[in-house]
Protein backbone atom coordinates (compact mmCIF):
# COMPACT_ATOMS: atom_id res chain seq x y z
CA UNK A 1 0.00 0.00 0.00
CA UNK A 2 2.83 2.35 0.74
CA UNK A 3 4.43 1.71 -2.64
CA UNK A 4 1.17 2.67 -4.42
CA UNK A 5 1.49 6.33 -3.48
CA UNK A 6 4.75 6.80 -5.34
CA UNK A 7 3.19 5.57 -8.57
CA UNK A 8 1.64 7.88 -11.20
CA UNK A 9 -2.20 8.18 -11.31
CA UNK A 10 -3.75 4.77 -11.03
CA UNK A 11 -7.25 3.96 -12.29
CA UNK A 12 -9.82 1.42 -11.21
CA UNK A 13 -12.64 -0.03 -13.27
CA UNK A 14 -15.88 1.48 -12.02
CA UNK A 15 -18.16 0.49 -14.90
CA UNK A 16 -17.44 -2.44 -17.21
CA UNK A 17 -17.97 -2.02 -20.96
CA UNK A 18 -21.22 -3.98 -20.72
CA UNK A 19 -22.46 -1.68 -17.95
CA UNK A 20 -21.55 1.41 -19.95
CA UNK A 21 -23.45 0.11 -22.98
CA UNK A 22 -26.45 -0.68 -20.76
CA UNK A 23 -26.28 2.83 -19.31
CA UNK A 24 -26.06 4.42 -22.76
CA UNK A 25 -29.04 2.44 -24.05
CA UNK A 26 -31.07 3.31 -20.96
CA UNK A 27 -30.16 6.96 -21.34
CA UNK A 28 -31.21 7.11 -24.99
CA UNK A 29 -34.41 5.16 -24.47
CA UNK A 30 -35.31 7.19 -21.36
CA UNK A 31 -34.98 10.49 -23.22
CA UNK A 32 -36.98 9.21 -26.19
CA UNK A 33 -39.69 7.83 -23.91
CA UNK A 34 -39.94 11.05 -21.93
CA UNK A 35 -40.11 13.28 -25.01
CA UNK A 36 -42.60 11.15 -26.95
CA UNK A 37 -44.63 10.42 -23.83
CA UNK A 38 -45.05 13.97 -22.62
CA UNK A 39 -45.78 15.10 -26.18
CA UNK A 40 -48.87 12.88 -25.97
CA UNK A 41 -49.74 13.86 -22.41
CA UNK A 42 -49.68 17.55 -23.36
CA UNK A 43 -51.06 17.02 -26.87
CA UNK A 44 -53.25 20.12 -26.61
CA UNK A 45 -50.25 22.45 -26.31
CA UNK A 46 -48.48 24.11 -29.22
CA UNK A 47 -45.03 22.82 -28.26
CA UNK A 48 -46.22 19.22 -28.15
CA UNK A 49 -47.87 19.57 -31.56
CA UNK A 50 -44.73 21.14 -32.99
CA UNK A 51 -42.59 18.38 -31.49
CA UNK A 52 -44.80 15.62 -32.87
CA UNK A 53 -44.74 17.21 -36.33
CA UNK A 54 -40.95 17.42 -36.07
CA UNK A 55 -40.63 13.74 -35.24
CA UNK A 56 -42.82 12.75 -38.16
CA UNK A 57 -46.40 12.78 -36.93
CA UNK A 58 -48.56 11.00 -34.40
CA UNK A 59 -47.85 7.56 -35.83
CA UNK A 60 -44.08 8.03 -35.69
CA UNK A 61 -44.46 9.28 -32.12
CA UNK A 62 -46.23 6.10 -31.10
CA UNK A 63 -43.66 3.87 -32.85
CA UNK A 64 -40.72 5.70 -31.28
CA UNK A 65 -42.32 5.43 -27.84
CA UNK A 66 -42.92 1.69 -28.15
CA UNK A 67 -39.52 1.06 -29.72
CA UNK A 68 -37.71 2.90 -26.94
CA UNK A 69 -39.79 1.02 -24.37
CA UNK A 70 -38.71 -2.24 -26.01
CA UNK A 71 -35.04 -1.24 -25.76
CA UNK A 72 -35.42 -0.25 -22.12
CA UNK A 73 -37.16 -3.51 -21.24
CA UNK A 74 -34.59 -5.61 -23.10
CA UNK A 75 -31.71 -3.86 -21.34
CA UNK A 76 -33.42 -4.44 -18.00
CA UNK A 77 -34.00 -8.11 -18.79
CA UNK A 78 -30.39 -8.48 -19.91
CA UNK A 79 -29.22 -6.76 -16.73
CA UNK A 80 -31.13 -9.07 -14.41
CA UNK A 81 -30.26 -12.14 -16.49
CA UNK A 82 -26.56 -11.33 -16.27
CA UNK A 83 -26.90 -10.67 -12.54
CA UNK A 84 -28.63 -14.03 -12.22
CA UNK A 85 -25.92 -15.84 -14.16
CA UNK A 86 -23.23 -14.11 -12.10
CA UNK A 87 -25.04 -15.01 -8.89
CA UNK A 88 -25.28 -18.63 -10.01
CA UNK A 89 -21.57 -18.83 -10.87
CA UNK A 90 -20.57 -17.31 -7.54
CA UNK A 91 -23.33 -18.95 -5.54
CA UNK A 92 -20.95 -20.43 -2.95
CA UNK A 93 -19.38 -17.09 -2.13
CA UNK A 94 -22.72 -15.24 -2.19
CA UNK A 95 -24.47 -17.77 0.03
CA UNK A 96 -21.62 -17.67 2.50
CA UNK A 97 -22.27 -14.01 3.26
CA UNK A 98 -25.22 -11.91 4.27
CA UNK A 99 -27.43 -10.71 1.41
CA UNK A 100 -27.18 -7.18 2.81
CA UNK A 101 -23.42 -7.20 2.31
CA UNK A 102 -23.80 -7.49 -1.48
CA UNK A 103 -22.83 -4.19 -3.13
CA UNK A 104 -26.28 -2.92 -4.15
CA UNK A 105 -28.31 -4.35 -1.29
CA UNK A 106 -29.58 -2.24 1.56
CA UNK A 107 -28.12 -2.59 5.03
CA UNK A 108 -28.35 -0.65 8.29
CA UNK A 109 -25.05 0.95 7.31
CA UNK A 110 -26.85 2.87 4.56
CA UNK A 111 -29.28 4.32 7.07
CA UNK A 112 -26.42 5.37 9.37
CA UNK A 113 -24.46 6.70 6.37
CA UNK A 114 -27.49 8.74 5.39
CA UNK A 115 -27.86 10.29 8.86
CA UNK A 116 -24.11 10.98 9.11
CA UNK A 117 -24.07 12.51 5.63
CA UNK A 118 -26.89 14.88 6.52
CA UNK A 119 -25.03 15.84 9.72
CA UNK A 120 -21.92 16.43 7.61
CA UNK A 121 -23.89 18.54 5.12
CA UNK A 122 -25.26 20.58 8.00
CA UNK A 123 -21.74 21.15 9.29
CA UNK A 124 -22.21 19.16 12.48
CA UNK A 125 -19.45 16.64 11.68
CA UNK A 126 -16.11 17.40 10.01
CA UNK A 127 -16.04 14.35 7.71
CA UNK A 128 -18.64 12.45 5.69
CA UNK A 129 -19.05 8.76 6.53
CA UNK A 130 -17.01 6.16 4.66
CA UNK A 131 -19.03 4.72 1.79
CA UNK A 132 -18.64 1.27 0.30
CA UNK A 133 -18.68 0.43 -3.42
CA UNK A 134 -22.06 2.10 -3.77
CA UNK A 135 -23.27 4.82 -1.42
CA UNK A 136 -26.90 5.23 -0.39
CA UNK A 137 -27.23 7.86 -3.13
CA UNK A 138 -26.40 5.29 -5.78
CA UNK A 139 -28.61 2.67 -4.16
CA UNK A 140 -31.57 5.06 -4.14
CA UNK A 141 -30.89 5.68 -7.80
CA UNK A 142 -30.68 2.00 -8.68
CA UNK A 143 -33.74 0.87 -6.73
CA UNK A 144 -35.79 3.83 -7.94
CA UNK A 145 -35.05 2.68 -11.43
CA UNK A 146 -36.06 -0.89 -10.60
CA UNK A 147 -39.33 0.43 -9.12
CA UNK A 148 -39.86 2.80 -12.03
CA UNK A 149 -39.32 0.26 -14.77
CA UNK A 150 -41.61 -2.21 -13.02
CA UNK A 151 -44.44 0.33 -12.73
CA UNK A 152 -43.90 1.86 -16.17
CA UNK A 153 -43.33 -1.52 -17.80
CA UNK A 154 -46.46 -3.16 -16.41
CA UNK A 155 -48.76 -0.15 -16.92
CA UNK A 156 -47.24 0.50 -20.35
CA UNK A 157 -47.77 -3.07 -21.55
CA UNK A 158 -51.39 -2.90 -20.34
CA UNK A 159 -51.94 0.37 -22.21
CA UNK A 160 -50.36 -0.99 -25.37
CA UNK A 161 -52.83 -3.91 -25.55
CA UNK A 162 -55.94 -2.29 -24.03
CA UNK A 163 -58.52 -4.70 -25.42
CA UNK A 164 -56.62 -7.80 -24.23
CA UNK A 165 -56.23 -6.16 -20.81
CA UNK A 166 -59.93 -5.23 -20.68
CA UNK A 167 -60.87 -8.84 -21.34
CA UNK A 168 -58.58 -10.24 -18.67
CA UNK A 169 -58.67 -7.67 -15.85
CA UNK A 170 -61.38 -5.56 -14.21
CA UNK A 171 -62.01 -2.36 -16.20
CA UNK A 172 -60.39 -0.11 -13.63
CA UNK A 173 -57.00 -1.75 -14.22
CA UNK A 174 -56.68 0.01 -17.58
CA UNK A 175 -57.82 3.36 -16.15
CA UNK A 176 -55.43 3.06 -13.20
CA UNK A 177 -52.60 2.13 -15.58
CA UNK A 178 -53.32 5.30 -17.53
CA UNK A 179 -53.15 7.48 -14.40
CA UNK A 180 -50.13 5.68 -12.97
CA UNK A 181 -48.19 5.77 -16.25
CA UNK A 182 -48.25 9.56 -16.45
CA UNK A 183 -47.65 10.28 -12.74
CA UNK A 184 -44.81 7.79 -12.55
CA UNK A 185 -43.29 9.29 -15.69
CA UNK A 186 -43.38 12.77 -14.16
CA UNK A 187 -41.80 11.40 -11.00
CA UNK A 188 -39.10 9.58 -12.97
CA UNK A 189 -38.14 12.63 -15.00
CA UNK A 190 -37.99 14.87 -11.93
CA UNK A 191 -35.99 12.29 -9.99
CA UNK A 192 -33.51 11.86 -12.84
CA UNK A 193 -32.94 15.60 -13.03
CA UNK A 194 -32.78 16.31 -9.31
CA UNK A 195 -31.07 13.17 -8.08
CA UNK A 196 -29.06 11.76 -10.97
CA UNK A 197 -28.14 14.75 -13.14
CA UNK A 198 -27.25 16.86 -10.13
CA UNK A 199 -25.06 14.14 -8.65
CA UNK A 200 -23.17 13.35 -11.86
CA UNK A 201 -23.10 16.78 -13.53
CA UNK A 202 -23.81 19.76 -11.32
CA UNK A 203 -22.39 18.82 -7.94
CA UNK A 204 -19.22 20.85 -7.28
CA UNK A 205 -17.04 17.72 -6.91
CA UNK A 206 -17.84 16.46 -10.44
CA UNK A 207 -18.82 19.60 -12.37
CA UNK A 208 -19.11 19.74 -15.35
CA UNK A 209 -19.35 15.96 -15.57
CA UNK A 210 -18.34 12.73 -13.94
CA UNK A 211 -16.78 10.87 -16.89
CA UNK A 212 -17.15 7.37 -15.48
CA UNK A 213 -20.09 6.63 -17.76
CA UNK A 214 -17.79 7.12 -20.79
CA UNK A 215 -14.38 5.92 -19.63
CA UNK A 216 -15.57 3.43 -17.05
CA UNK A 217 -12.57 4.34 -14.90
CA UNK A 218 -12.20 6.10 -11.59
CA UNK A 219 -8.88 7.48 -10.33
CA UNK A 220 -7.32 6.19 -7.16
CA UNK A 221 -7.81 9.55 -5.43
CA UNK A 222 -11.47 9.75 -6.33
CA UNK A 223 -12.10 6.17 -5.27
CA UNK A 224 -10.33 6.82 -1.98
CA UNK A 225 -12.38 9.94 -1.38
CA UNK A 226 -15.82 8.79 -2.52
CA UNK A 227 -15.77 5.07 -1.81
CA UNK A 228 -13.08 4.62 0.88
CA UNK A 229 -14.31 1.24 2.11
CA UNK A 230 -14.27 -0.15 -1.41
CA UNK A 231 -10.75 1.19 -1.86
CA UNK A 232 -9.60 -0.47 1.36
CA UNK A 233 -11.26 -3.75 0.42
CA UNK A 234 -9.57 -3.78 -2.98
CA UNK A 235 -6.20 -3.01 -1.48
CA UNK A 236 -6.52 -5.82 1.03
CA UNK A 237 -7.58 -8.15 -1.72
CA UNK A 238 -4.70 -7.35 -4.05
CA UNK A 239 -2.34 -7.75 -1.14
CA UNK A 240 -3.85 -11.06 -0.14
CA UNK A 241 -4.86 -12.82 -3.34
CA UNK A 242 -3.22 -11.98 -6.60
CA UNK A 243 -5.89 -11.49 -9.24
CA UNK A 244 -9.54 -11.18 -8.46
CA UNK A 245 -12.93 -11.98 -9.80
CA UNK A 246 -14.36 -10.41 -12.91
CA UNK A 247 -17.53 -9.10 -11.31
CA UNK A 248 -15.64 -6.93 -8.86
CA UNK A 249 -13.99 -3.61 -9.27
CA UNK A 250 -10.40 -4.42 -10.16
CA UNK A 251 -7.32 -2.27 -10.64
CA UNK A 252 -6.92 -1.52 -14.31
CA UNK A 253 -3.77 -0.98 -16.36
Amino acid at each position, binding site marked *: MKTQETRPVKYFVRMTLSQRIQHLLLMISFILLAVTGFALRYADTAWA*QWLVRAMGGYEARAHIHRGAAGIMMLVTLYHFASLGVGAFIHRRRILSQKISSLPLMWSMKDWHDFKLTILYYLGRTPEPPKYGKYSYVEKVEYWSFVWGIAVMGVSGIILSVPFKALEIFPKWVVKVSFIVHSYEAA*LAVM*AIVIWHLYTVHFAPDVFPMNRVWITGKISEDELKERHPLEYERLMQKTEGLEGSEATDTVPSR
Partner: protein
Amino acid sequence: MEMILRKPLFIIPVSALCLFLSAAPSFAQGMPGLQDIGSETDCFSCHASQDTVKDIPGGKKISLDLDQGKWKGSKHSSLGCSACHGDKPHPPSEDVSTPGGWKSFMDSLQMGCAGCHPDAAESFGKSAHALSCSPDAPKSCTSCHDPHEPGPSRKTKKELIARCSGCHEQPTKSYFLSVHGQNLALGNEKSATCFDCHDYHGVKAVESVSSKELAEGCSKCHENASAKAVDGWFSHTPITSVQKIMLNLANLFYFIVIPFTIVGMVAHQVMKHRRMVEVRNIEREGKQ
Protein backbone atom coordinates in the same frame (compact mmCIF):
# COMPACT_ATOMS: atom_id res chain seq x y z
CA MET B 1 -79.52 2.28 -11.92
CA GLU B 2 -80.79 3.22 -15.31
CA MET B 3 -82.14 6.46 -13.97
CA ILE B 4 -78.83 7.34 -12.43
CA LEU B 5 -77.10 6.70 -15.71
CA ARG B 6 -79.65 8.61 -17.66
CA LYS B 7 -79.52 11.79 -15.68
CA PRO B 8 -76.21 13.43 -16.60
CA LEU B 9 -76.92 13.35 -20.30
CA PHE B 10 -79.89 15.58 -19.92
CA ILE B 11 -78.16 18.23 -17.97
CA ILE B 12 -77.70 20.39 -20.99
CA PRO B 13 -77.05 24.08 -20.61
CA VAL B 14 -79.25 26.66 -22.23
CA SER B 15 -76.42 27.75 -24.44
CA ALA B 16 -77.25 25.12 -27.03
CA LEU B 17 -80.09 26.58 -28.91
CA CYS B 18 -79.08 28.62 -31.88
CA LEU B 19 -75.47 28.82 -30.86
CA PHE B 20 -74.50 28.19 -34.41
CA LEU B 21 -77.20 30.29 -35.91
CA SER B 22 -74.91 33.21 -36.19
CA ALA B 23 -76.36 34.61 -39.31
CA ALA B 24 -80.09 34.28 -39.59
CA PRO B 25 -81.85 36.93 -41.62
CA SER B 26 -83.73 39.76 -40.12
CA PHE B 27 -87.46 40.00 -40.07
CA ALA B 28 -87.88 42.89 -37.78
CA GLN B 29 -90.26 45.71 -38.32
CA GLY B 30 -89.17 48.61 -40.44
CA MET B 31 -87.09 46.39 -42.72
CA PRO B 32 -87.43 46.30 -46.48
CA GLY B 33 -90.44 44.34 -45.44
CA LEU B 34 -92.90 42.50 -47.53
CA GLN B 35 -91.43 43.38 -50.81
CA ASP B 36 -90.21 40.59 -53.07
CA ILE B 37 -86.70 39.41 -52.70
CA GLY B 38 -84.25 40.27 -55.42
CA SER B 39 -80.94 38.64 -56.15
CA GLU B 40 -78.47 37.34 -53.59
CA THR B 41 -76.44 40.50 -54.06
CA ASP B 42 -79.40 42.47 -52.79
CA CYS B 43 -79.40 40.46 -49.57
CA PHE B 44 -75.73 41.07 -49.02
CA SER B 45 -76.12 44.77 -49.53
CA CYS B 46 -77.52 44.76 -46.01
CA HIS B 47 -76.61 41.38 -44.48
CA ALA B 48 -72.86 41.80 -44.62
CA SER B 49 -72.41 45.07 -42.84
CA GLN B 50 -75.37 45.72 -40.62
CA ASP B 51 -73.59 45.16 -37.36
CA THR B 52 -77.03 44.47 -35.96
CA VAL B 53 -77.32 41.97 -33.19
CA LYS B 54 -80.69 40.50 -32.23
CA ASP B 55 -81.83 38.96 -29.01
CA ILE B 56 -83.37 35.56 -29.45
CA PRO B 57 -84.98 33.16 -26.96
CA GLY B 58 -82.58 31.46 -24.58
CA GLY B 59 -80.72 34.63 -23.73
CA LYS B 60 -78.63 34.34 -26.89
CA LYS B 61 -77.84 36.90 -29.51
CA ILE B 62 -77.47 36.47 -33.22
CA SER B 63 -75.76 38.67 -35.74
CA LEU B 64 -77.60 39.54 -38.91
CA ASP B 65 -74.37 39.65 -40.86
CA LEU B 66 -73.34 36.72 -43.00
CA ASP B 67 -69.72 35.80 -43.64
CA GLN B 68 -69.68 35.61 -47.43
CA GLY B 69 -66.49 33.57 -47.47
CA LYS B 70 -68.06 30.83 -45.35
CA TRP B 71 -71.31 31.04 -47.30
CA LYS B 72 -69.46 30.45 -50.60
CA GLY B 73 -67.86 27.36 -48.98
CA SER B 74 -71.30 25.93 -48.18
CA LYS B 75 -72.98 23.64 -50.68
CA HIS B 76 -76.21 25.53 -49.92
CA SER B 77 -74.83 28.63 -51.61
CA SER B 78 -75.67 27.10 -55.00
CA LEU B 79 -79.34 27.16 -53.97
CA GLY B 80 -79.40 30.85 -53.15
CA CYS B 81 -81.07 32.67 -50.28
CA SER B 82 -84.62 32.33 -51.47
CA ALA B 83 -84.52 28.54 -51.60
CA CYS B 84 -84.93 28.53 -47.87
CA HIS B 85 -85.94 32.04 -46.94
CA GLY B 86 -88.56 32.31 -49.65
CA ASP B 87 -89.61 35.34 -51.61
CA LYS B 88 -90.57 37.27 -48.52
CA PRO B 89 -87.64 37.04 -46.19
CA HIS B 90 -88.89 39.72 -43.81
CA PRO B 91 -92.16 38.33 -42.57
CA PRO B 92 -94.63 40.42 -40.68
CA SER B 93 -93.34 40.78 -37.41
CA GLU B 94 -93.51 39.66 -34.01
CA ASP B 95 -90.54 40.18 -31.80
CA VAL B 96 -88.01 37.41 -32.40
CA SER B 97 -86.84 37.55 -28.84
CA THR B 98 -90.11 35.92 -27.76
CA PRO B 99 -90.50 32.17 -28.29
CA GLY B 100 -93.61 32.78 -30.37
CA GLY B 101 -91.85 35.28 -32.59
CA TRP B 102 -88.90 32.98 -33.06
CA LYS B 103 -91.18 30.12 -34.00
CA SER B 104 -93.03 32.20 -36.57
CA PHE B 105 -89.71 33.16 -38.10
CA MET B 106 -88.57 29.52 -38.28
CA ASP B 107 -91.97 28.57 -39.77
CA SER B 108 -91.53 31.22 -42.42
CA LEU B 109 -88.64 29.32 -43.94
CA GLN B 110 -89.76 28.02 -47.31
CA MET B 111 -88.01 24.75 -47.04
CA GLY B 112 -86.87 22.74 -44.07
CA CYS B 113 -83.75 20.58 -44.04
CA ALA B 114 -85.64 17.30 -44.31
CA GLY B 115 -86.61 18.01 -47.91
CA CYS B 116 -83.06 17.36 -49.04
CA HIS B 117 -81.74 15.45 -46.02
CA PRO B 118 -84.47 12.90 -45.25
CA ASP B 119 -82.13 10.29 -43.73
CA ALA B 120 -80.55 12.73 -41.37
CA ALA B 121 -83.93 14.06 -40.35
CA GLU B 122 -85.25 10.56 -39.75
CA SER B 123 -82.37 9.46 -37.56
CA PHE B 124 -82.45 12.76 -35.72
CA GLY B 125 -86.11 12.07 -34.94
CA LYS B 126 -85.08 8.93 -33.07
CA SER B 127 -82.12 10.54 -31.34
CA ALA B 128 -81.66 11.15 -27.64
CA HIS B 129 -81.64 14.86 -28.47
CA ALA B 130 -85.02 14.76 -30.20
CA LEU B 131 -86.60 12.52 -27.57
CA SER B 132 -85.28 14.47 -24.63
CA CYS B 133 -87.76 16.25 -22.41
CA SER B 134 -85.21 18.84 -21.43
CA PRO B 135 -86.03 22.36 -22.63
CA ASP B 136 -82.32 22.81 -23.35
CA ALA B 137 -81.95 19.82 -25.65
CA PRO B 138 -81.13 20.67 -29.26
CA LYS B 139 -84.40 20.20 -31.08
CA SER B 140 -83.64 21.43 -34.56
CA CYS B 141 -80.95 21.00 -37.19
CA THR B 142 -79.75 24.56 -36.65
CA SER B 143 -79.03 23.80 -33.01
CA CYS B 144 -75.87 22.16 -34.25
CA HIS B 145 -75.58 23.10 -37.92
CA ASP B 146 -75.27 26.51 -39.47
CA PRO B 147 -76.63 26.11 -43.00
CA HIS B 148 -74.67 29.19 -44.04
CA GLU B 149 -71.35 27.47 -43.38
CA PRO B 150 -69.41 24.68 -45.08
CA GLY B 151 -70.73 21.22 -44.22
CA PRO B 152 -69.28 18.59 -41.89
CA SER B 153 -67.31 16.80 -44.62
CA ARG B 154 -65.15 19.89 -44.94
CA LYS B 155 -64.48 20.17 -41.24
CA THR B 156 -61.92 18.47 -39.07
CA LYS B 157 -63.04 16.22 -36.22
CA LYS B 158 -61.85 18.86 -33.80
CA GLU B 159 -64.17 21.45 -35.37
CA LEU B 160 -67.06 18.98 -35.30
CA ILE B 161 -66.57 18.25 -31.60
CA ALA B 162 -67.02 21.94 -30.91
CA ARG B 163 -70.74 21.34 -31.56
CA CYS B 164 -70.91 18.82 -28.73
CA SER B 165 -68.71 20.69 -26.28
CA GLY B 166 -71.04 23.69 -26.14
CA CYS B 167 -73.44 21.67 -24.01
CA HIS B 168 -71.43 18.59 -23.00
CA GLU B 169 -68.54 20.47 -21.53
CA GLN B 170 -67.34 17.94 -18.97
CA PRO B 171 -67.34 14.88 -21.23
CA THR B 172 -65.45 16.84 -23.88
CA LYS B 173 -62.86 17.86 -21.33
CA SER B 174 -62.35 14.28 -20.20
CA TYR B 175 -62.30 13.16 -23.83
CA PHE B 176 -59.30 15.39 -24.53
CA LEU B 177 -57.51 13.79 -21.58
CA SER B 178 -58.07 10.34 -23.08
CA VAL B 179 -55.65 8.73 -25.49
CA HIS B 180 -58.13 9.25 -28.35
CA GLY B 181 -58.49 12.94 -27.54
CA GLN B 182 -54.74 13.34 -27.22
CA ASN B 183 -54.11 11.70 -30.58
CA LEU B 184 -56.82 13.78 -32.21
CA ALA B 185 -55.11 16.89 -30.88
CA LEU B 186 -51.91 15.66 -32.53
CA GLY B 187 -53.72 15.45 -35.87
CA ASN B 188 -54.88 11.84 -36.01
CA GLU B 189 -58.22 12.16 -37.83
CA LYS B 190 -58.80 8.41 -37.46
CA SER B 191 -58.88 8.78 -33.70
CA ALA B 192 -62.31 7.98 -32.27
CA THR B 193 -64.40 10.88 -31.07
CA CYS B 194 -67.94 11.69 -29.83
CA PHE B 195 -69.91 10.50 -32.86
CA ASP B 196 -67.82 7.35 -33.39
CA CYS B 197 -69.52 5.89 -30.32
CA HIS B 198 -72.64 8.06 -29.98
CA ASP B 199 -73.59 8.26 -33.66
CA TYR B 200 -74.15 11.42 -35.70
CA HIS B 201 -77.74 12.59 -36.13
CA GLY B 202 -79.19 9.67 -34.24
CA VAL B 203 -77.28 10.64 -31.11
CA LYS B 204 -77.41 7.84 -28.60
CA ALA B 205 -77.27 8.25 -24.88
CA VAL B 206 -74.49 6.41 -23.07
CA GLU B 207 -76.76 3.65 -21.79
CA SER B 208 -78.34 2.96 -25.15
CA VAL B 209 -75.09 2.14 -26.92
CA SER B 210 -74.83 -1.63 -26.52
CA SER B 211 -71.50 -3.34 -25.91
CA LYS B 212 -71.83 -5.00 -29.30
CA GLU B 213 -72.36 -1.69 -31.09
CA LEU B 214 -69.53 -0.12 -29.13
CA ALA B 215 -67.18 -2.97 -30.04
CA GLU B 216 -68.13 -2.58 -33.71
CA GLY B 217 -67.08 1.04 -33.52
CA CYS B 218 -63.80 0.15 -31.82
CA SER B 219 -63.04 -2.60 -34.31
CA LYS B 220 -62.81 -0.07 -37.13
CA CYS B 221 -59.28 0.54 -35.82
CA HIS B 222 -58.69 -2.09 -33.13
CA GLU B 223 -58.80 -5.56 -34.65
CA ASN B 224 -59.18 -7.40 -31.37
CA ALA B 225 -62.01 -5.30 -29.96
CA SER B 226 -64.65 -7.59 -28.50
CA ALA B 227 -67.98 -6.91 -26.82
CA LYS B 228 -66.60 -8.66 -23.74
CA ALA B 229 -63.72 -6.20 -23.56
CA VAL B 230 -65.82 -3.06 -23.82
CA ASP B 231 -68.72 -4.25 -21.68
CA GLY B 232 -68.80 -2.00 -18.64
CA TRP B 233 -66.02 0.21 -19.94
CA PHE B 234 -66.27 3.64 -18.44
CA SER B 235 -64.94 6.70 -20.07
CA HIS B 236 -67.03 9.72 -19.21
CA THR B 237 -69.87 7.67 -17.82
CA PRO B 238 -70.69 7.25 -14.15
CA ILE B 239 -68.44 4.74 -12.45
CA THR B 240 -68.99 2.13 -9.78
CA SER B 241 -67.74 2.59 -6.25
CA VAL B 242 -64.97 0.00 -6.66
CA GLN B 243 -63.71 1.83 -9.73
CA LYS B 244 -63.91 5.14 -7.93
CA ILE B 245 -61.92 3.78 -4.97
CA MET B 246 -59.22 2.38 -7.24
CA LEU B 247 -58.83 5.62 -9.22
CA ASN B 248 -58.76 7.67 -6.03
CA LEU B 249 -56.15 5.39 -4.50
CA ALA B 250 -53.90 5.74 -7.54
CA ASN B 251 -54.25 9.52 -7.44
CA LEU B 252 -53.76 9.69 -3.69
CA PHE B 253 -50.63 7.55 -3.86
CA TYR B 254 -48.94 9.94 -6.28
CA PHE B 255 -50.28 13.04 -4.54
CA ILE B 256 -48.30 11.89 -1.52
CA VAL B 257 -45.30 10.21 -3.14
CA ILE B 258 -44.44 12.88 -5.71
CA PRO B 259 -44.22 15.92 -3.39
CA PHE B 260 -42.55 13.85 -0.66
CA THR B 261 -39.88 12.49 -3.04
CA ILE B 262 -39.22 15.74 -4.82
CA VAL B 263 -39.03 17.88 -1.68
CA GLY B 264 -36.79 15.29 -0.03
CA MET B 265 -34.46 15.06 -3.01
CA VAL B 266 -34.23 18.82 -3.49
CA ALA B 267 -33.54 19.35 0.22
CA HIS B 268 -30.78 16.72 0.15
CA GLN B 269 -29.10 18.23 -2.91
CA VAL B 270 -29.36 21.79 -1.60
CA MET B 271 -27.72 20.79 1.69
CA LYS B 272 -25.02 18.90 -0.19
CA HIS B 273 -24.37 21.81 -2.52
CA ARG B 274 -24.06 24.38 0.26
CA ARG B 275 -21.66 22.20 2.22
CA MET B 276 -19.49 21.39 -0.79
CA VAL B 277 -19.20 25.02 -1.83
CA GLU B 278 -18.34 25.91 1.76
CA VAL B 279 -15.62 23.20 1.93
CA ARG B 280 -14.19 24.31 -1.40
CA ASN B 281 -13.99 27.93 -0.26
CA ILE B 282 -12.23 26.92 2.96
CA GLU B 283 -9.72 24.86 0.93
CA ARG B 284 -9.05 27.81 -1.36
CA GLU B 285 -8.48 30.15 1.53
CA GLY B 286 -6.13 27.60 3.07
CA LYS B 287 -4.03 27.54 -0.11
CA GLN B 288 -3.75 31.28 -0.39
